[in-house]
């Protein structure tokens, strides 16, 4: 069936079954590969996107459920040439090893900082409860998020 969803501010027409997980629509129909398949069960956060301001695991949401809502993906934050402060902080802290989980983690952090620009350590860790990292880059990732929060506060 034909559906219209709004991704990164642009209405996009797609043809897919209503129950198709949003993840596959983003990756395969819209060629937005930054959200990645990790578990298909909402347990790891590799596929995290922001829907109406909330961090959501796109593997676990039928595409029909986001009709009329705003979907934001990692591609909308910044680019290699013009990184978002969060992306820049991850570069500055070298906060990645394989990097597969990182775009999902950045989206969770973005959703957090949008509503809470000055999160405490406990709040950052709690916000990342749905994100797994297997390389063990946790300490650097936490530093990067703290750094980004500081930079973003200083800029406003």
């Amino acid at each position, binding site marked *: 069936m034909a559906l219209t969803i709004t991704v990164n501010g642009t209405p996009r027409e797609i043809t897919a079954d209503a129950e198709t997980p949003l993840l596959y629509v983003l990756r395969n129909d819209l060629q937005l590969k930054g959200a990645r398949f990790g578990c298909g069960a909402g347990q790891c956060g*590799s596929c995290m996107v922001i829907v109406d301001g909330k961090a959501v695991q796109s593997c676990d949401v039928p595409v029909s459920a986001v009709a009329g809502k705003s979907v934001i993906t990692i591609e909308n934050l910044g680019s290699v040439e013009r990184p978002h402060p969060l992306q820049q902080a991850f570069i500055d802290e070298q906060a*990645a090893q394989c990097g597969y989980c990182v775009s999902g983690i950045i989206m969770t952090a973005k959703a957090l900082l949008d509503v809470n620009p000055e999160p405490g350590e406990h709040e950052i860790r709690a916000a990342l409860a749905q994100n*797994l990292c297997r390389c063990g880059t946790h*300490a650097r990732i936490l530093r990067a998020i703290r750094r980004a929060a500081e930079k973003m506060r200083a800029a406003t």
Partner: protein
Amino acid sequence: MTSGENTAARKLPGSLETNRRLDRWLRVNRDGTVTVFPGKVEIGQGILTVLVQIVAEELDLALERVRLAPADTSRSPNEGITSGSRSIQESGMALRYAAAEVRDLLMQRAAVKLGVSLEQLTAADGVIAARGGGSLTYGELADDDLLAREATAEVAPKAAAQHAVVGTAVPRLDIPAKVAGVPSYVQDLELPGMLHGRIVRPPGYSGRLTALDAAEVQAMPGVVAVVRDGNFIAVVAGREEQAIRAQRRLARISQWEEQSALPENSDPRYLLDCVAIAEVISEKTGETAASGAISELEAEYTRPHIAHASIGPSCAVAQFTDGQYTVWTHSQGIFPLRGDLAKVLGVDEKSITVIHAEGAGCYGHNGADDVALDAVLLARAVPGRPVRVQWMREDEFAWEPYGSAMVVRMRAALGADGRIASWSHDVWSHGHSTRPGGKGGVNLLAGWHLAQPLRPAAPGNPPLPAGGSHRNAIPLYDFPQQHVTNHLVSEAPLRVSALRSLGAHVNVFAIESFMDELAIAAGADPVEFRLRHMKDARARAVIEAVAAKAGWKPREQGDGMRGRGIGFSRYKNLGCYVAVITEVEVENEVRVRRAWAAIDAGQAINPDGIVNQTEGGITQTISWTLKERIDFDRQRVTTRTWQDYPILTFAEAPEIEVTLINRPDQPPLGAGEGAQGPTGAAIANAIFNALGVRMRDMPFTRDRLVAAMI
């Protein structure tokens, strides 16, 4: 000069020895850039940045002018497998010497063209200039002939004191694209007309398909093919979610017969009842100074099977066109994989091209190679169309080859002089390598399920001194008498293969826990007790450095809730030296709050890369040690999801401080796996320091802790 000269048996550095042509490694492009062709691959460890640093250094070229070509069997040097923390020693040293020689060739050609002597030339960022005027770029100087020759390794690379790029924390080249969400992995590869495949595995290792009527699946929306070959069944569909739906339906309607062949439970002690080949790997029968031991200690340490548990399930894309196979894969060994693929397909290796594309971190041999065969088998069923196969999370947990369960029994006698008089270490384990390329079989999962099944090659161990199950079983400490025996259990009920650090995690856990038990029996401080038995100056240096950094106090005691402990090893007894101190807090469960490490990996090419690997190694090992275990019943692996297999979370992650001891004049030693062994023991020792409770069976779960305290 052409290739074929200089074939004398002179041994060349690193992988130059087996790949001698300079143009296998480097190409100077007309635009002045240089393309590097490494045979080693990026698995999240940052190796490619390090190789670019080495080439930029020797060629006096800006980092931005160095390009990287993906490893490809049709072009790249064959460097075997990217494993064992050997990439810098093998690929890095080959490229260091190759680049130094290429620079020398460019200088010689420039001297001729500019009509000056070599002494009058300087090179800076790809431009060779004569003192009296005149200059040429590398791009102007190079042609196809220049590098079409064998390396001699006779051009000395730069001395450490001259290094400007090597030894600096160059930021990883791949991180900006990865944090921007740019397609970076084989999982992101998109080819025109690409289809999606999924495999329906048997419910357990022994499963045999007894009935399947695939007609209803064949009729599902988007389904292009249902492939059945013996116990291998799979679907190919136009859309990814269609392939997944068809896979689920196929799994539901297929009927299987199973045997009860797995051990009774996940306790690794089943190994003690298995047929094993015992090999004494170290024997010392020296004189002991003390007359008579004052005490004898015995202890048994275990780890269950644990998973690589990559965040990104294994994936490959394959295409079969005009009799030629092409497969994009995150395998750690594209050449061995090609060899095993050729055996399964019954074709010549020449008809297969294997191209590396990054995957998620693998930490050893996971499903990467297996899914490459899956994709190739499905591509063969739909000629001309590329097929992308990604394993589901359940496939990865149930079918990846695990890190083997292990049991270590220690015995030692402590002399009246407070020194260890005799030491014995017995390790029981399955072999730690079943990678593709093994002799006498095929180590690719689907190959075993075909109607004409191929047999797997027997699990083996890399030989000592590196070792597999016996990796780091021989202590680096100085004991007058020691006896180390490897009990290799060949028949493995669960699929096993190389997991980061192989046997070192458990052997070092046992050695370093036992050293702590002996220190306590001797009434000694654990740091001082280690130094008392250690002659190796570099080993002493990391132990002393981590103790200083952590502010270790002699005989410091925990407070019933918090405590600290130390662990040490030199990886493989020939790689990097690492000492780790952890601070644990024990309430309902064990939490590692802080960790300190000191590492000496010889010459540091990229200091931050070493620190990042060490932090990651510590964090991952905390997860292995506290939380992880593969579960199964008599028929099947029952671990299928992250709920079944919890790993360390952000809430639980410690702060880590790594002290790097850089030795620019020493050879680089690799740094990817040094922290695993020391960290496991440092946790057990910290728990004892906190509570007086000795944890010897991993994982140290809440239930185990409660049981140990009663």
